[in-house]
């Protein structure tokens, strides 16, 4: 595509400008994706170089170090203690003792089982006392995988601490050589509420994230490569084992064992994207519109209108969503009213109509999501609109701009400029909007064509509600749920990356004088 310079660009007509922007948006996408892969390549290259440098550094420290340093390679913290940094030294030593104790008593066992995820499954064995065959339980695949992951994290933490220990020795030697004083334990403690206060502050939050988010995610990613499900629960009925990439192949290719996962997946993914698009942009524009109406000069009772809308944010969603879903039920209030008025002859099945690929329920969830979302967007838009300098509007009015021109030339660019990142996060969180779908429809009505592959699938099911159904159904295909979860991640990550890489180029052009 031809690149214009600024001057050439300004000379283009309006429609040409628009086409140019559009074209540069789309031509930027391959470049953005290319950049992404280049970045990955660079990351691995840097990581490789980094590891090499570390190893060389460790080797040199050993070669040049004194006997205290050399002993520290085996007995962690020895150098620190010998040089008077008792607190640090003891922490290192404690880490080493705990690590060795853990690896000998448990960790080694779990690590050795990890490649097979258990050898002896539940089986029947002859029991001499009872003189009968009884069930005997063997290994527990779930625990092996869980503690295996835990042990791997611990090993990484230990290696890091060991490296820190070596580094400490090297630094201490340098310090002593140049005649500086080493920090004492008291200094270290004091620094934890001062220079290094961030370590104190982050300790608790990061531990929580590590244990309750990072490790579960690693675990679930690994589950995607096993056959963990209701019939292979790892202990009670059968072990589960590694399956390689076969789960991904089942989901992504058109051939399955008699069932068609990929068609189901494709259908749900399409609807998820459609839903996220409409849920995000209907709320965005209508919310902005409502905010503009309330903010308009001359409108009275601004506070009242705002309060009415804001109040609905306070009411827990499960109440409003469940209640509204029942309002539109076949025997609900809405149908009752319409029947009384004589506008319809028989009740409309708002949630059950499967005509046109479940068009009615699909539109309904989007409409009710507008009802849920507008108050929130109204708040956001109000805050931003009030920040737009009023003289922009004044001067544009003097120049003869009408309301529509003001909107497209001032309000909208300003809003988009400021809320660009918010739009992206709101799109991705709508993709994972479990509550609205599950509480309104539960995924209904059933999509007969897509069902069967993994339980029943409905027309309004998002990937996230499908994932929930998969794990709670009778078969509980956890491995499939993991694969779907990873797919959701991939979709979200790709969208975010592309938008982030493209956004700035659009932003720069959205300058408003």
């Amino acid at each position, binding site marked *: 595509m031809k690149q214009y310079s600024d001057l050439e660009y300004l000379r283009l007509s309006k429609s040409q400008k628009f086409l140019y922007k559009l074209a540069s948006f789309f031509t930027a996408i391959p470049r953005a994706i290319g950049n992404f892969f280049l970045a990955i390549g660079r990351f691995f290259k840097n990581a490789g170089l980094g590891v090499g440098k570390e190893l060389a550094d460790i080797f040199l420290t050993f070669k040049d170090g004194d006997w205290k340093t050399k002993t520290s390679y085996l007995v962690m913290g020895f150098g620190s203690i010998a040089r008077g940094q008792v607190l640090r030294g003891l922490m290192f030593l404690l880490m080493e003792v705990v690590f060795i104790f853990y690896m000998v008593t448990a960790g080694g066992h779990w690590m050795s089982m990890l490649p097979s995820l258990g050898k002896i499954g539940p089986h029947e064995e002859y029991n001499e006392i009872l003189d009968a065959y009884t069930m005997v339980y063997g290994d527990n695949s779930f625990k092996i995988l869980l503690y295996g992951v835990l042990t791997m994290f611990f090993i990484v933490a230990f290696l890091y601490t060991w490296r820190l220990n070596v580094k400490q020795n090297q630094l201490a030697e340098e310090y002593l050589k140049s005649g500086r004083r080493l920090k004492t334990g008291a200094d270290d403690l004091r620094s934890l509420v001062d220079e290094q206060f961030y370590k104190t502050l982050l300790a608790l939050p990061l531990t929580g994230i590590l244990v309750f988010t990072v490790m579960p995610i690693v675990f679930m990613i690994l589950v995607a490569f096993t056959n963990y499900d209701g019939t292979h629960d790892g202990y009670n009925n059968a072990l589960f084992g590694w399956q390689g990439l076969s789960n991904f192949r089942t989901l992504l290719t058109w051939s399955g064992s008699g069932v068609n996962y990929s068609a189901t997946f494709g259908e749900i993914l399409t609807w998820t994207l459609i839903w996220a698009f409409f849920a995000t942009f209907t709320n965005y524009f209508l919310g902005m519109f409502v905010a503009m109406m309330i903010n308009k000069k001359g409108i009275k009772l601004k506070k009242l209108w705002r309060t009415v809308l804001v109040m609905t944010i306070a009411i827990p969603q499960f*109440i409003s969503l469940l209640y509204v879903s029942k309002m539109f039920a076949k025997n609900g209030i809405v149908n009752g009213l319409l029947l009384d008025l004589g506008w319809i002859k028989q009740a409309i099945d708002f949630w059950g109509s499967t005509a046109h690929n479940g068009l009615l329920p699909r539109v309904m969830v989007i409409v009710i999501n507008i009802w849920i979302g507008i108050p929130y967007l109204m708040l956001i838009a109000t805050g931003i609109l009030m920040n737009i300098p009023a003289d922009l509007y004044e001067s544009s009015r003097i120049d003869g701009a009408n309301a529509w021109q003001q909107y497209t030339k001032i309000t909208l660019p300003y809003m988009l400029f400021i809320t660009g990142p918010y739009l992206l996060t709101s799109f991705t969180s709508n993709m994972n909007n479990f509550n609205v779908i599950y509480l309104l429809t539960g995924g209904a009505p059933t999509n007969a064509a897509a069902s069967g592959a993994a339980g029943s699938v409905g027309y309004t099911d998002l990937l996230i509600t499908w994932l929930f159904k998969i794990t709670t159904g009778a078969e509980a295909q956890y491995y499939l749920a993991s694969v779907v979860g990873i797919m959701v991640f991939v979709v979200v*990550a790709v969208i975010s990356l592309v938008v982030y890489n493209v956004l700035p180029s659009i932003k720069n052009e959205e300058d408003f004088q």
Partner: protein
Amino acid sequence: MNETLEKRHMGLKASARISNTIIYIVLILMAVVWLIPFICIVLQSFRVESTWQVGYVIPQKWGWDNYVALWNSDFKRWYLNTFVIALCVAALQTVIVLCMSYTLSRFRFKLRDGLMRFMLILGMFPGMLTMIILYRVLKDLGLTQANAVPGLILVYIASSGMGYYVSKGFFDTIPKSLDEAARVDGATRAQVLYKIILPLAKPIVIYTILTAFMGPWGDFVFAKYVSFGTSAGMNVAVGMYGWLQLDQIGQKYTMFCAGGVIVAIPVTILFMCLQKYYVEGVTGGAVKG
């Protein structure tokens, strides 16, 4: 000359009046649409002639029966569970979120950027994915079913550090020169936080407490997983969801309405009192992205 100007002025005024009238009509319609479900739910909670769903709104016979039935059901237990969870989460999550956001706003340490990017990526995994394993782990710890409350609190607060964006945006707006002045006067970093920043951060502290308190009232999925059909461990959302299922809706529909009113009233009052802070937080959060 003057006349035409005046005419034009009148014309403008008239068109403004017309557009304002249209806006008033739209706003009134909107207020009705937004309030009707809540008015209906209140009215139906007082209906005593039948307990199932009906096609009319105004009860034929009024009474407190549904509220009495609520008092005699497991609802009390669910309400207490949710309230305890909400209180604990409000306290602990606020501490964690503030620690996290203050640190990321004020300190520049080696892994800061990497950490923020890492958390951004973590956030792209659907939270539901981790439920399976968290459920199994909580089960092994004995923190499911009847003991679901401590288990839920643990899980809610553990990962709350990831939601630091809004309050970090707020801390970013407090000038750093304040910190530096205090540091010159000999205050430690910890003293800066307690004595200077926290008093200034009152709005965001209240916002964080408010959102943390309101979260557990609406949580449904994980609570459903963890209570696993045991009534004693349910929160209001899970318990009342059961009342609207096919097997119970005939007897429990009006009770659901009454329960909804009881749940919504305190939360709404609290929210309306602290509305100012909520609005500030939401607007600030969206602007900073």
